């Protein structure tokens, strides 16, 4: 069964849930950008830098683990609280579907990514976790693991769309050094010529020139599950099931935090939550 009534919801919140703790150390970043807390130390633990394309699941280090359910029972985020060391922060909890790393900031040739959600659908319940069949629920990112150089270059990302066609996204200017944990969204770069299409996979990334430093970055596919704003530093914000939208959490979901920063560090991010089952 699924949770269909308030009584079932209240019962699950009180008696059938997994608790999660968020307690992440601050990491350096850039103001007004998305910052992955995948590599931040704390709880959940620091995630590993990926190499070849791999799916993530609830047991992957860096994710918020929860009790797996036997269908038709399933899971939902029903509560979270949050206090951030910086003001004007937004916390997003994403399901980290798949990732790859090892892209090099000094190569000006096409670098292979080969991260296609279609080919991964049979692993770690990706077929359910990805959401809509047209891949429109998936957020695509370039994610940095080690800073690349200061030379301003353009990155062109070649993708496969939901209809099977391929094409280049609008070039992304990498102005100045991109630090570790910097994330930039790719969905907004679908060009007008491909309007209405959604990204199914990423094939290659090509830099227009060397940035000067190899660094390390990669491609990550996530699905947004919940978001909470933290307008005041060190002030506890609470969001319940209704404010969160009762997001469905399929088995194997690899939940991890991303913050949208207001300043040049992520600040500490502390909170807790409940994932109810039923």
């Amino acid at each position: 069964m699924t949770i269909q009534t308030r009584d079932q919801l209240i019962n699950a919140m009180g008696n059938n849930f997994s608790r999660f703790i968020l307690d992440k150390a601050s990491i350096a970043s850039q103001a007004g950008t998305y910052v992955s807390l995948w590599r931040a130390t704390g709880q959940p633990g620091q995630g590993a830098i990926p190499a070849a394309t791999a799916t993530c699941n609830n047991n992957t280090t860096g994710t918020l683990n929860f009790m797996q359910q036997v269908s038709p029972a399933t899971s939902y985020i029903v509560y979270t609280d949050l206090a951030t060391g910086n003001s004007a922060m937004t916390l997003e909890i994403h399901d980290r579907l798949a990732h790859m790393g090892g892209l090099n900031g000094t190569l000006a040739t096409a670098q292979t990514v080969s991260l296609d959600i279609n080919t991964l659908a049979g692993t770690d319940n990706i077929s359910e976790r990805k959401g809509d069949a047209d891949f429109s629920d998936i957020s695509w990112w370039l994610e940095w693991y080690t800073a690349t150089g200061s030379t301003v270059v353009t990155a062109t990302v070649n993708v496969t769309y939901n209809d099977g066609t391929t094409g280049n996204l609008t070039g992304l200017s990498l102005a100045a050094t991109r630090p570790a944990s910097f994330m930039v969204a790719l969905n907004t770069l679908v060009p007008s010529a491909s309007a209405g299409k959604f990204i199914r996979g990423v094939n290659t990334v090509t830099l227009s020139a060397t940035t000067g430093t190899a660094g390390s970055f990669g491609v990550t596919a996530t699905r947004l599950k919940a978001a909470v704003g933290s307008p005041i530093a060190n002030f506890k914000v609470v969001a319940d099931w209704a404010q969160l939208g009762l997001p469905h959490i399929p088995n194997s979901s690899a939940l991890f935090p991303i913050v949208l920063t207001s300043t040049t560090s992520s600040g500490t991010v502390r909170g807790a939550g409940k994932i109810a089952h039923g």
Partner: protein
Amino acid sequence: MEVNTVVKVPEPFHETYPDTYVVTEVLQTEDEQEVYILGEIGAFSVCYLEVV
């Protein structure tokens, strides 16, 4: 190729930068590679430049 050379940018960057551009600076990067700066759009390797 030198400063003030007019160039076009071929695939895979031509969709984003379809015009002609002027080389504004030639510089060595931290890893000692030569790159060509096309004003505000930044650095390009010589392999992505076509002299007009």
